[in-house]
């Protein structure tokens, strides 16, 4: 479970995120939406443990910056940066070592590589991969650890239609395995059939947090909801 409580982040005098709280429960897919500059990236980087902040963030009841929390946390960043001279397979081997994965991780690695059509690319080095392939490797790395909480920042960008289809399948599988999933995206259509909870950030605060049943009841699409809450008072 991912729990964010009164998260506040300031850059100098600029308040990027203002005391936001939310939870993504096990088996739930949360979608973080918001216009540019709303504070999404700051929220994501804070959850990933890359920023200092006020408030608390816990991953499976553990402080997000603790070693134990990191062991169960998968992260797919917006910019998939890989090591230039490491092959695809070596990236996975590094993750296996870094997360101290059990023997037999290779089978899972092979499965992931096959899902994302990277089996024949596994000996290619990071420098020689296209942006889409880098994104796929980044996804494989995050999924290899069998996370209890996974956060994906614009995961569909750069992926081919087959990979998007496979990723959606994987996300549903994760949900079935009681993993908490948080996706940040601008492409609302891409997550239409996946989400359970939508979190709309605007000017550093939540403009709306709705579950799917709440949105269904209101007979609004999340796109309509997004424009309604972000354009109010503009």
């Amino acid at each position: 479970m991912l729990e964010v409580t009164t998260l506040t982040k300031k850059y100098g005098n600029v308040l990027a995120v203002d005391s936001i709280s939310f939870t993504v429960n096990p088996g739930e897919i949360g979608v973080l939406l918001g216009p540019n500059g709303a504070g999404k990236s700051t929220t994501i980087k804070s959850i990933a443990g890359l920023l200092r902040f006020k408030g608390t963030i816990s991953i499976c009841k553990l402080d997000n910056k603790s070693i134990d929390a990191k062991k169960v946390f998968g992260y797919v960043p917006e910019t998939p940066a890989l090591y230039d001279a490491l092959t695809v397979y070596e990236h996975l081997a590094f993750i296996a070592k870094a997360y101290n994965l059990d023997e037999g991780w290779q089978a899972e690695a092979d499965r992931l590589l096959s899902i994302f059509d990277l089996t024949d690319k596994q000996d290619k080095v990071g420098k020689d991969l296209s942006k889409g392939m880098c994104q796929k490797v980044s996804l494989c790395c995050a999924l290899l650890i069998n996370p209890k909480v996974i956060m994906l920042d614009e995961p569909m960008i750069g992926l081919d239609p087959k990979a998007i289809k496979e990723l959606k399948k994987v996300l549903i599988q994760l949900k079935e395995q009681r993993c908490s999933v948080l996706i940040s995206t601008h492409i609302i259509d891409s997550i239409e059939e996946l989400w359970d909870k939508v979190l709309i950030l605007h000017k550093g605060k939540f403009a709306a947090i709705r579950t799917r049943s709440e949105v269904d009841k209101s007979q609004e699409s999340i796109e309509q909801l997004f424009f309604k809450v972000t354009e109010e008072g503009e």
Partner: protein
Amino acid sequence: MQPLLYIIKRTLVNTIKKIIKRPLLLIGYTLGILFVVFILILSFLDSSFNSYGSYDLFFSLAVTALFIYAYFTLKKGIDNGSSFFRLADVNMVFTSPIKSNNILFYGFLKQLTQIFSFSLLALMQVPNLRRFFSISQFGVLIILIGFILYMLTLPIISMIIYSYTSKNIKRRKIAKIILNLLFLAVLFNIVFQIIKEQTLLEGFTMAMSTKFISYLPVIGWNGQIIAYAISGITPSFYVFLGLSISSIFLLILWLYSIEKDYYEDALVSTEFKESVISTKAKNGFFGIGSLTKIKSVSFTFTKSGAMTIFQRSYLELRKTGMLLFDKVTIMILVFVIIMRVVFYEGSILFVLLISVYILFLSNVNGRFTQELSKHYIYLIPVHNTTKLLAVTAMANLKNLLDGFILFIIAGFLYKQSIPLVILCGFTYASFGSIYLYGDLLARKLFGSFHANALKIFFKILLTLLILTPGIILAVIVLINSQSFINTVLILLSYNIFMTTILLLISSTIFKYIELG
């Protein structure tokens, strides 16, 4: 630590494998290493070097260089911090369950390997140092040690300062004021001593080789280490070495004790570093960087066809304020004045030699990368040669203007005739043209090389090959006629001839080269 060592090990193994798999790459690297070794051996075998610089002068120059480097590094550090990491580390290592002190040590190891490879390139400057100072055989190694230790220390200091000042703007401002005051104090001391001693050289040496500066932590200690390159190793060398190494360990401990959560600082500076790397890759080393301020300029395009390319270049230069003098021109000018005033060295021919050498170094990364990485140039419906002329016109014009300003000053300093000054200005610009079009030819010939360092090495070789006949001809004319005007005239004629040939060969670059 094991997973982090895995990254370093595999990076090294894969790089070696790649080199072995490609014989051309292997030959290239071997040639490159042999070239550096050859230059070093040659500089030590040739006893004709006029090594008159004193130990104090060498120490003063070394410490001044360290001060200047520290000033800019720390200033940048206050704004953006400093990072040993790349974005891949942030995404994969920072988010992994590896202890942050192990990650810091890993960053430190990475920095060490990067500095070491950079130091190898710096070795090529040893013959120039040998020209003025009697550097001992182990001197090169000593300079390298001092250089590497210093390059390792400054980023840690930067990170420490950043972690204290990043919390609020007021602290940042205070830190900048303190830094400026410290360096103004050093400058004031130099000026004061020069006025007191009445000679530039002695005043400068007196100011910068005091005991106080020698014992100054980090800058003084590393300056001392570097200066042992002249005096040779004595027991006190090991004392300064020990001080320098222990200061690195103490600074790491300090950094770790004040800020275990350094990820945010490292993230900010890594993102900054990535943007600088990508700017350099796109625009070349002297391109418009992310720090370059872009002025607002009102401008209307009045021309059509190829001339719009020229007008765009002109607009860019106006916006970046690099129309006349940029850092390369200033660097050359400062060097020429130092040579003349401090060392009483050389002649206008020497200035020409040095200025075209610095111009060459500034062109090593190429000035065309920015133009070639964008698709517009390939699509504009104009003949390729016209396009190439239009693209390079601004650069050629700038070289010409720079050349004239430079040689008017040099002509004044060396009391030379106006025709010679004019010829030198044109010759300077003609060398610039050879570098420009030679760069394009190198792209045509070596464009497929993956390793940038190797590409640069072959480009250097190619340019030397193009220039050598002209230089030989000029030397023959100089020996026979003893006339600077004839010598420069020959150089200029040869360069114009070669530029025309290069222009014709390389004009097809816009036709056949693949974008990107």
